[in-house]
């Protein structure tokens, strides 16, 4: 029987988590506020579109995904006070004006014949950018000090991947002609350009930034 009083290392040999991270409390909170704002716009758009799409399977998927993104917004809303932001509304902001313009353009299609455009905006542009921003945050924040954010991101990423797959398969089933391929691609290009202008869900630096522009106060011992 092992001696229970024998000193052991505080971290097990297989536990390779590191203390340094790219974000200080303020930077993590700013990003979380941006995520909440962006998830809110997404669940509102999905909810609004339900009545506008004639395809029954798409209608039901939008309703299901609407809740998932609302739940993500709720998780971020709860995380903000833990990051010293006692008024979550103060940080529930778009990363910049370009992202507002992106959301306006993404939610523009309304007609019953524009299901492809609606789905392209969400599943080929917006959600892939969520996946990118969340993955960057998860992989670069301190694995120990910001562990609650990482845990939340892991839950959310599972949803994002599932929803992206759903949306992409719906699109593949809806796009049947060369003209529809062109429509989807044109809309994706238009939105992607706006997203580039925005710099991503959390603005420039959503998936990293030049070393010279790293936020102050961060312990950049990990990957940058």
């Amino acid at each position, binding site marked *: 029987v092992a001696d229970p009083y024998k000193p052991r290392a505080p971290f097990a040999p297989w536990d390779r988590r590191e203390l340094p991270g790219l974000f200080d409390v303020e930077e993590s909170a700013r990003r979380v506020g941006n995520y909440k*704002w962006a998830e*809110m*716009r997404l*669940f*509102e*758009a*999905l*909810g*609004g*579109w*339900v*009545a*506008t*799409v*004639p*395809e*029954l399977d798409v*209608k*039901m*998927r*939008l*309703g*299901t995904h*609407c*809740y*998932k*993104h*609302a*739940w993500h*917004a*709720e998780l971020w*809303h709860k995380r903000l006070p833990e990051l010293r932001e006692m008024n979550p*509304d*103060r940080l*529930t902001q*778009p990363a910049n004006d370009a992202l*507002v313009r992106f*959301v*306006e353009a993404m*939610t*523009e*299609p*309304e007609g*019953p014949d524009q299901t492809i455009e609606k789905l392209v905006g969400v599943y080929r542009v917006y959600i892939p950018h969520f996946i990118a921003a969340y993955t960057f945050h998860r992989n670069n924040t301190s694995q120990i000090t910001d562990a609650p954010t990482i845990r939340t991101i892991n839950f959310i990423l599972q949803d994002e991947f599932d929803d992206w797959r759903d949306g992409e398969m719906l699109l593949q089933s809806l796009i049947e002609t060369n003209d529809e391929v062109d429509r989807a691609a044109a809309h994706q290009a238009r939105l992607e350009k706006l997203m580039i202008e925005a710099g991503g869900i959390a603005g420039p630096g959503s998936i990293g930034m030049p070393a010279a522009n790293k936020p102050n106060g961060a312990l950049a011992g990990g990957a940058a």
Partner: protein
Amino acid sequence: MRKYFPVDELARDQRFNQVTMRDRMADPRSVLSDRPESAGARRGSNRLVPSRPDASGAARALMHGIFVGEIQALEGAGRTCHDFRTAGDSARRDQDESAGLPPGDISDAIPFALKLDMARQAWDEARHVEISVKLSDWMGGEIGEFAENTVLFQAACSTDPVLRLAGVNRALEGLAIDVFTTMKEFGDLAGDPFLEFCEDWMLADEVTHVKMGSDWLRRVTENDPDRRKAALEFQAVVDKLFSYGGTRSDSQESPIGLARRFRELAGFTDAEVEGIAEVSLAALNERKASVAKMQAAAQQFTDA
């Protein structure tokens, strides 16, 4: 995307046919039939039970009604997520502009938690569409076999979110409690555990939705008695509309019963349940009087 979405533009595929409430009730395949007493049915009872000779068709019609009602409930909950902003959200410039509002207007703001509840309801209603379309298939029905009455979504079109809570969550989802209770009993009596099982699950969700409506109505109008009064009046109008023809009441002459116990769980007071019972019974009596009048006229014609 517009701030409010008109009911006559609800998007449907080509299988669906939309009609008015009056047209739907005039459908001879409706669950409320003026059928004569017949073998297998208890005298004086019109309740939807398997012993009714028209039970199969009536149950399929009711299930189709549930199916299209769930679609509209999904659409309504989704629209409430979209149509109103939360405090602090001023980034809706296009919407403000098209609605003629000053930029950043937040006079329509609703609590964040209310929106989250509506999003949750959207998911629940999406599952209910999935369940009811599978049940319809199980019962031998087809999408579009019966017409769709869009009055539920109309109740979800109010520009006041409190009226939506009263009209949809309390009146219509309250009716859903009654309908699912009746269908659950139908499944039990018919020896159909599949139907009974599914209705029981949907019933649990509906009680949750009605309770959401009851709780939010009280919280949002806590300091605004006039707004609460207007909301409850709107609820009474919708309740009466859906009692049209006495489809739902305590009387055995109505196909659908009033699920008093589940309504209590969902936050209805005793007085509110009594009020709905009275309105429903009055609607049933109105219909009976109307039928008697038509029968008398027909008799006169025959005699002549």
